């Protein structure tokens, strides 16, 4: 199983085009934001030196998009193997099917995790140069754990939707759709507070806003503590709700509650994927 995971990683990182477009696909949200949206968002928030707040906000959202898109690209190897008959050959080996599937998942989790770290470094390097913001070292362990959790959640999500996909072309069309939607659901293009009520409700049925919120809580906490001390907590709550740093389900969710919601999504995706795995196994092998 480890050998097979290593193979998936080698194929992903060995293909420069895949890695390049994975990074670009993630950074495109970041670039689009800088070029088109930043000024609009800045003007809607009346606080001084707003980039110190918005930079980590954007990073938190973008990392969620990275988790979604890269785990999908990594898992599409599974679809290609299935379509090109390689999966049939793997099934003929002594390695049980669950281990083969496990290796695809483990590979996707690792790839998605590494890409989040990589894109995170790129974005912090950029904002460090331009706005002088610093990596919040104190929360780094939590950020790394969050990246791991989001890799898990989105890998399970993509596994579930790929249970119904047999062709590589279908997978890439799905990637386009999911990639585009991800920017909105993760609250990167528009802060969740700026969305219509209906859109807010819809997006709360996906893990995306919770994932962004968790990253943002961690990354923005130091700067928000600095800006809103003492009597300004009311203003802080308004801002964090508007920006999707906190998510309200009846009341604002605490950090651990957001983690629980994400774990819940993970569990649901895994259970559904297992239910549909019978179907996916048939699709895996009936091509002969």
């Amino acid at each position: 199983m480890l050998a097979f995971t290593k193979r998936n990683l080698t194929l992903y990182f060995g293909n420069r085009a895949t890695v390049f477009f994975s990074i670009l696909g993630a950074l495109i949200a970041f670039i689009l934001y800088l070029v088109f949206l930043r000024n609009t968002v800045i003007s809607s928030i009346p606080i001084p030196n707003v980039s110190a707040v918005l930079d980590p906000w954007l990073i938190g959202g973008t990392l969620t998009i990275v988790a979604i898109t890269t785990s999908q690209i990594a898992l599409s190897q599974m679809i290609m193997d299935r379509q090109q008959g390689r999966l049939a050959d793997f099934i003929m080996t002594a390695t049980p099917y669950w281990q083969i599937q496990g290796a695809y998942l483990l590979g996707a989790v690792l790839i998605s995790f590494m890409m989040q770290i990589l894109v995170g470094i790129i974005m912090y390097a950029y904002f460090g140069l331009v706005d002088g913001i610093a990596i919040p070292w104190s929360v780094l362990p939590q950020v790394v754990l969050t990246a791991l959790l989001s890799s898990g959640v989105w890998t399970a999500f993509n596994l579930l939707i790929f249970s119904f996909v047999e062709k590589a072309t279908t997978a890439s069309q799905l990637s386009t759709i999911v990639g585009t939607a991800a920017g909105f659901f993760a609250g990167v293009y528009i802060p969740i507070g700026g969305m219509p009520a209906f859109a807010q409700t819809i997006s709360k049925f996906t893990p995306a806003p919770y994932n962004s919120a968790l990253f943002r809580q961690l990354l923005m906490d130091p700067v928000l503590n600095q800006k809103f001390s003492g009597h300004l907590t009311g203003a802080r709550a308004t801002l964090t709700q508007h920006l999707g740093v906190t998510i309200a389900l009846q009341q604002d969710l605490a950090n651990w509650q957001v983690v629980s919601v994400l774990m819940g999504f993970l569990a649901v995706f895994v259970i559904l994927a297992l239910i549909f795995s019978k179907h996916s196994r048939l699709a895996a092998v009936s091509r002969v």
Partner: protein
Amino acid sequence: MADLTIQNLTKTYDAKMAVDHISMTIKAGSFVAFLGPNGAGKSTTVGMVCGLVAPTSGQISLGNLAIDSTSYRAKLGVVFQDSVLDRDLTVAANLKLRAQMYAHIDAAWQQQLIQHFGLSDFVTQKYGTLSGGQRRRVDIVRALLHQPAILILDEPSTGLDIQTRRIIWATLADLRRDMGLTVILTTHYLEEAQSADFVYIIDHGAIIAADTVANLTRQYAAYQLKLTPIDASKLLQQLQAQGLKAKSDHQTISVAVPTAQAALAVLNKCQDLLADFECRPGDMNDIFMALTGKAVH
């Protein structure tokens, strides 16, 4: 080693019957060929024998091994119709990965296979950069890595040059002799089935003939005589007088006769009327024609 037994194997896709009640016993150590045109149901049968396609009905057994067990699959080595190795990995990396996916692979055996099939020169090359013939040899080595008892080759020679085909068949003949390997070949190449111990001719999912090549030839493939006449009408008369059905075709006249002796007799009798002649023994194509009324392609 046990024989591979197939009983009443059937596979239907929606309304289409891809495999229609196929039964056979493949003796351990034998070389059998499934011969038939594209779409005859050969690959579906192979898929079912590999446990990759669920049969609609019927049984497959190898001794007392269940078809969906790991120990059953371990007895099979499959060369799939399409290449199934990773193009972006080297030959060595591909073989190493597959080896790691089995419980125990004999490294010395692996080296021996690499030598046998002449892979040494390009093991460090990426699989995707190899020629079709080189790739096929790697595919076969991959299929034999775990020392299977049965090697299944699904249309292995499609698009290969004659030299590569010879290397492959010579090496497989050695392996059959040395390790008692059972070989199952599907092909629509007639000359490839020629060296098989037993041939199943499959059309529209059903076995339409099953026999040794020698028996099939005797029964269905007559000697083909192609005569170039000096005087066409006289020759035709002469042949009809001998009770032979002659077919006139441009400059030549074709006649089918049952044996080499009969061919000699015809040639002797018509000697004075002939400018030239050709004689060839019947091949699998003639057999297929006789059975189905159509050519393989």
